[in-house]
């Protein structure tokens, strides 16, 4: 057995350039475990779709190696890779019925007629479209087309399924529904999935691991939980979830914490040291809005700050409170609307506090 047999897909130092001047993908390294749901998340133009297309075989890697199931596939034609793919606009063949669309990958593999019928029916049942077998794609709703596309990518039992922003064209409710449905299909079949999206909520709810892309580089590859709670740099902190940023300067480093003097004269706070090196570095402190406490009892939080309420926005389950702190006017606190919640007024002076672990000192 190959020593890497646990890994279904490996990208090794993959680079891609379209014009010979700029690198779209700068240095991509990922090992995908069998059965994993891996998401590539990033803003548009960050290189994530290019990586997906290189794996599918529609783009060639400029340098580096892509390994599928222990074998380099750099020179394997797309139709021989045995990879299922769901496209952004589904790409269902308009001149074929739903059943014919599903039968297509089986027919080109020269399967027997009865076997094809069985597999197609099974796949249709899986996505709950058994009654739509003879419809044309144009006669289906967006969500139904999406399900057909997923079924078509799975019906020939590929080793790997790629999805390129498959839910982008759906409305919000349907998108959430489909997220769970795809997630369940993944769990039931145990198929390995590589998913591309720019929607962080989608990535967080569905993935086993997420690779955050920016500028052709994977900024962080981690579980959703780790990505949200422990972002490793300012880009990831900002891109995943909502984030408050406070600028400051490191004045002391004590083990894995550091003391930071806030710019604007807001005093000195403690923060977890993530990627600051030395005293005197400028740093961005990252704080999640829901981890900030309003008027904490004395001694609860190691860090306390004076703040002025600037704006209150009612959101039903919580109130977004915008406060100014140390010259930053866009500091957001999510205050849950529970029974004993105190009511704040605009212009009120409050104290806010947080745990040292929740405040992460990142690169400036």
């Amino acid at each position: 057995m190959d020593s890497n047999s646990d890994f279904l897909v490996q990208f090794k130092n993959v680079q891609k350039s379209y014009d010979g001047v700029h690198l779209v993908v700068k240095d991509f390294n990922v090992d995908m475990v069998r059965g994993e749901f891996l998401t590539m998340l990033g803003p548009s133009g960050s290189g994530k779709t290019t990586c997906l297309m290189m794996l599918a075989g529609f783009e060639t890697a400029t340098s580096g190696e892509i390994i599928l199931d222990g074998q380099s596939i750099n020179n394997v034609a797309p139709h021989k890779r045995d990879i299922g793919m769901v496209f952004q606009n589904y790409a269902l063949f308009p001149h074929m019925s739903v059943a014919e669309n599903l039968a297509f990958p089986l027919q080109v593999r020269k399967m027997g007629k009865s076997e094809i019928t069985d597999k197609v029916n099974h796949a249709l049942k899986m996505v709950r479209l058994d009654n739509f077998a003879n419809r044309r794609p144009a006669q289906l709703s967006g969500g139904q087309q999406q399900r057909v596309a997923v079924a078509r990518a799975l019906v020939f039992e590929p080793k790997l399924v790629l999805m390129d922003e498959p839910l982008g064209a759906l409305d919000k409710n349907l998108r959430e529904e489909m997220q769970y449905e795809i997630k369940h299909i993944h769990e039931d079949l145990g198929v390995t999935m590589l998913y591309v999206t720019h929607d962080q909520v989608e990535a967080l709810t569905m993935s086993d691991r997420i690779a955050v892309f920016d500028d052709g580089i994977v900024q962080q590859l981690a579980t959703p939980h780790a990505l949200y709670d422990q972002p490793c740099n300012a880009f990831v902190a900002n891109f995943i979830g909502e984030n408050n940023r406070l600028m400051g300067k490191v004045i002391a480093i004590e083990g894995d914490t550091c003391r930071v003097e806030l710019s604007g004269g807001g005093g000195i706070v403690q923060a977890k040291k993530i990627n600051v090196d030395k005293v005197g570095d400028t740093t961005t402190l990252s704080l999640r809005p829901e981890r900030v406490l309003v008027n904490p009892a004395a001694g609860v939080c190691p860090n306390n700050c004076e703040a002025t309420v600037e704006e209150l926005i009612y959101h039903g389950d919580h109130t977004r409170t915008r406060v100014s702190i140390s010259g930053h006017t866009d500091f957001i606190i999510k205050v849950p609307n529970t029974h004993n919640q105190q009511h704040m007024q605009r212009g009120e002076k409050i104290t806010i506090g947080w745990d040292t672990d929740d405040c992460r000192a990142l690169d400036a």
Partner: protein
Amino acid sequence: MATSYSKVGEMTTNDGVPLKVSLQRSQRKLKIWAFLLVAPLLLFIIVSFIIPVVNMSLRGVENPQVHTIMPNVTKALARWEGVDLPDEATYAALVLDLQEGRKNKNIGKVASRLNYERSGMRRVISGSARKAVKLTEGPYKKQMIKIDKSWGDVAVWSLIKRESGQFTFSYLISAVDYRTNDQGNIEAKPENKQIYKALFGRTLIMSFTITAICILLAYPIAYLLATLPLAKSNLLMILVLLPFWTSLLVRTTTWIVLLQTQGVLNDVLVWMNIIDEAGRLQMIFNKTGTIVAMTHILLPFMILPLYSVMKTIPPTYMRAALSLGANPVVAFVRVYIPMTVSGIGAGSLLVFILSIGYYITPALVGGQSGLLISNMIAYHMQNSLNWGLAGALGFILLVIVMVFYSIFNKVIGIDKMKMG
């Protein structure tokens, strides 16, 4: 409440007018405007297209000559049974009509008309008319037969009776190489006189050939046009349209220069020793010339509809087919080509219908074997002046086009057709 219900349950507006009436009233102004906007074009089409087409088609069945110029004979023959020679009264009517026709100088029309059906009738009618002027009293039967013994032939009288109606099918019958014999039965013309059926057949076969060649040539170009980057595809598009903007006559004559026996292509072949001096190929003034020149001229009509369809097909369909395991050829045949069927259909219909009625190019480069039915129609319009036959041939051509159009509509659907 914006609406209320009257007793019978019909929807009415607030002031009690039925909703449908009110709706119609409110849209009437829009409809009048819409009609006024299309009225100039409608008028133009009626005057310059519909009326001439109907007029020419009618000429294929109209038969006024005998009926109007020989009214007495027409009346007299109405009760003739056609077994023996007609009675004395009919001969008297004949003399009267011939004298009248000669005086009015229109008897020649009857002569030409009857000559189409039976050769020699021009001489019979004209000669008899000249001599009948001198006849003053009866009995006319004997004198007429003496003037021309054809008047003693029952077949001649049958012909006149047959063609004395206001309308006739004889042009249409003749246009498909049939004729009415002396006994009044419809039979095929002798083989050496059959020309139209073969000509229709040749027109159809050549139109099919040209359409097929156009599909084969246009498909790769249209595909290239639709998939190349914009700057390159624009340049290619100009190359496609350039001949389109050149005069038809110039393009056709250019082919003569290229293809004639002492032309460029033959010279090159001789120079390359592929053929020798004696073996120069005859590539123009025959079918080959017509097919080459017409394909060249009609090619843009195939490229443009194909291109407009291909332009709308995103590359993801081919990618999807590849990712599902189809090799590029299978993917192209089973996924790409079916999606371009409407473009193929539109282009084929255009090219086929245009080529079925094409006139100038076959006239210039067709020689004898490359002539099409439209050239024959033009011949009857301009040279033989047999407008009735020209009308009948044109009408049959129109019917053929209609038949192909409805087949196309059944198979592909005219609503799916996309033009340029």
